[in-house]
């Protein structure tokens, strides 16, 4: 069971208090109606499935109800950092840095 540091509560809490909400940094297109079906489908349905570091969105659902981001290793399940919405990850795979992870 993961031990997750909630950046809002400032505490390590057990996984049971949280819900995972999928990949982080998926920004809603500013003008959805300008998107083609393909672009909208990309936004809606396509997600990374990396072997390694992954930036994820979590919510402290049975705690402060705040959303935040987690950088987690998908093989070892290590959590390298948690950070608030709007902040950029401090830890990234080299490749992810080159491609530019949106905040």
């Amino acid at each position, binding site marked *: *069971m*993961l*031990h997750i540091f909630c950046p809002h509560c400032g505490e390590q809490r*057990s996984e049971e208090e949280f*819900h995972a*909400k999928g990949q982080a940094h998926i*920004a*809603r297109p500013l*003008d*959805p*109606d300008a*998107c083609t*079906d393909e672009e*909208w*489908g990309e*936004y*809606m349905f396509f997600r990374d499935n990396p072997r390694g570091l992954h930036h994820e*969105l979590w*919510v402290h*659902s049975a705690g402060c*109800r*705040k*959303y935040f981001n987690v950088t987690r290793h998908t*093989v*070892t*399940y*290590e*959590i390298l950092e948690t950070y608030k*919405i*709007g902040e950029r990850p401090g830890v990234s795979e080299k490749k992810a840095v080159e491609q530019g992870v949106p905040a």
Partner: protein
Amino acid sequence: MSQVNRLPGGGRIDRSQPLTFTFNGQTYQGYAGDTLAAALLANGVDVVGRSFKYSRPRGIVAAGAEEPNAVLQLGSCEAAQVPNVRATQQALFNGLVARSTNGWPSVDTDLMALVGKVGGKLMPPGFYYKTFMYPQSLWLTYEKYIRKAAGLGRAPTERDPDIYDHVNRHCDVLVVGAGPAGLAAALAAARSGARVILADEQEEFGGSLLDTRETLDGQPAAEWVAKALAELEKMPEVTLLPRATVNGYHDHNFLTIHQRLTDHLGEVAPLGANGVRQARQRIHRVRAKRVVLATGAHERPLVYANNDVPGNMLAGAVSTYLRRYAVAPGRRLVLSTNNDYAYRVVLDWLDAGLEVAAVADARSNPQGDWVNEARRRGVRILTGSAVVECLGSKRVSGARICAIDAQAGKVVGTGERIDCDLIASSGGYSPVVHLASHLGGRPQWREDILAFVPGPGNGVQLRIDAGAVNGVFSLGEVLTDGYRAGAQAAEEAGFKAVDGSLPKAEARREEATVALFLVPHDKPTSRAPKQFVDLQNDVTAAGIELAVREGFESVEHVKRYTALGFGTDQGKLGNINGLAIAARALGISIPQMGTTMFRPNYTPVTFGAVTGRHCGHLFEPKRYTALHRWHLENGAEFEDVGQWKRPWYFPKPGEDMHAAVARECLAVRNAVGILDASTLGKIDIQGPDAREFLNRVYTNAWTKLDVGKARYGLMCKEDGMVFDDGVTACLGDNHFLMTTTTGGAARVLEWLELYHQTEWPELKVYFTSVTDHWATMTLSGPNSRKLLAEVTDIDLSNEAFPFMSWKEGQVGGVPARVFRISFTGELSYEINVQADYAMGVWEQLIEAGQRYGLTPYGTETMHVLRAEKGFIIVGQDTDGSVTPDDLNMGWCVGRNKPFSWIGRRGMNRADCLREDRKQLVGLKPVNPNQVLPEGAQLVFDPRQSIPMQMVGHVTSSYRSAALGCSIALALVKGGLKRMGERVFAPLADGSVIEAEICSSVFYDPKGERQNV
């Protein structure tokens, strides 16, 4: 029956406490302090079970968790049945009832053994796969008999009388195992002031120190154990958990411990001092800053012909039975070994006054201290030799010892036959690496000790290994290693380690082990008598070689093909031997072969312990409305809606559900009914941007909703599919009250927060769940205005208080918000009061309502009434693939709102605009007395051949008392353009119900009744 194998003195048993137990119907005696296995051996019970595949007689092999054969069924009555109990880990108690799990008609004379004798060669690995493949249709028949023939116990069919519980713990250092390394580690960590948990699976702490012949400070080692425990018990930060198996090492240093609290006392937990039944077992869920792994090592048996005959045991286990339980499981011992440490069994055997027939040592010239002591005491040692074959069938009668060339895997010379009734074997020691590999850590081979040790924790496991599991075997070094590990763990957890004293172990010269796994036989492996590798699964050396010949080269494939390591013992004895044999057959080294991985749990855990208190009425939380007591007192039947208990209908004496619902429906249509609607989700939304936020999350427009008004809204996901609905009222310019479906309340709140926190944090708006704060009572029906007027000061006239508006005022003498909204199509008021006033208000309404024919109704009537009006229930009439247009609810979509609200882009995808999508329509069965089953699939042509082309399904279906016919809602392909056409529901029984497609609004299509 007397305890024929009990030694006259010694052991850690309490001879003043004799205990009676039965095994396979026969009554025996043992002593307090015995395990069931020790007591069986004491009574000379050789055969404890029949083997899985060949039904060969099997006896006790080991003394701990690694026991493969003595896996028994416990329980004197049906409710107390426990399968898969290892007799070596079950403490004896008075009245214990145990049985073998297979063998027919009995374990001593098993007819199935003929299969093993005659058909042994006919049952190679993959036998079942190869033989019972065809015809496929018969597999279910085959399977029944195969399972009966195998069998490792059965589950009880009656309710377990015991309770089990879970406890969460946090510690600085968790020490796994309380042998010499674990005790030393616990002392080091505890002395630093760290919070320590020490867990051990056995009945007593001490591990190998409880039966070793070695001394500490010149005293029996067990005396130091007592001293160490006395010190630990005094420390307030130390928790000692005996009978507690650390079964799982999970993510982020979270470990699960299965503690058997009362299994040693009886088959049902006794009552505690308070008269309440004690918990029988407990799962400790531990988050540890550091873990010291001191799990020790399991002795490996040697693999030789007929090594499964009862009377073949692990050398160390024989010592344990002798010294700890004062049981001699034989009279005349032969030892086959490749190492020095195993010689302790010879010395212990001599000390007990018993006879050692011979020792076969695979090494050419062993000269260790214990070897030489055995020589001095006159033991015949045959060097460069091994037991190649066991003689006997239900009990060892002799051993054939040959000179061998271990390197070449050949027998040299003819050897000799030595009479004996017990063969102890030792092929070296395998560190118990299981927990270290639970998170994927690969064990590493060490050629110097011929064993796998745990791989590095790599930060994934914050773990320090100590003692035998760490490849450190001599007692003095084990203690030092344990102390070092405990001190390091404490330091890493933020404590200052302190020096402390450790007892002195005697120095002893020990020589290296020689690699020997499969003992060669005169005949090739495939022709030799069976040489068992995995006793629980009847996997032989020949089977593994065959698997390799058939092309299974990966250790994982060999495992799955042969079932090596599959049993309840998870290959604790056989795995290393098995992969050594496979590696040899492939001509590669053991590290090249690699090892299979271990997963939780280390030993089987009962379902009771897994479940804990989460069963019966505590299985799931239950939510009750403030009016629940009234519903109970008035005979309501209840329905589960999410976690809520909602009144389903209120039957009068003699009424069935159908009659009650019909009566309730007519009462609402003709007079007035009252519904407890408190469970609807309510979210209080405040802030200057609240209105803008609603515009973005609802499909319809909220800009022009005035204070005092309410509006129905649909919510979609980004894909354009409906996911919730409800009425939202404008309480003030910056203040709204949103209602959600009962089951969707939490989901919707999390959804609103998601968009507010991650997409539009600039909007000033706050959400608060107020579901439980307000109780909601719905008055519905033509008499509702007259009734409500009797208990309120609000002007209820249609002009002052029109449909889709709300008022604040007094109802029943307390402050209330009254919403004039309707889910029935009738004149309707939803009265909201503070939840703790609800009962008083409700009772006043019931009292005043007597004059107006007020009838309480439940969710079933609510469903019928709303279906008559074609009002949807999200999750019943929708399933996540339905757009507002599919529901014919385009009127509820604000296509011209400036902001691209959630769902707009999604519902404009090409596929969502198709005209032949499934659309919500009404259905009227042609025979008005036939009710379509909900979920029934629909076709346009019932005469087509199977598989038919399905065009939709029934989502809601009821008998309508008001209309005098049955009605249904259904999703039908292109249904909105098929009004008047027929659809057919072919049912499983072969009958077909024919129905006409019609408008989904069956009752009062102009909606006049709610506007009066």
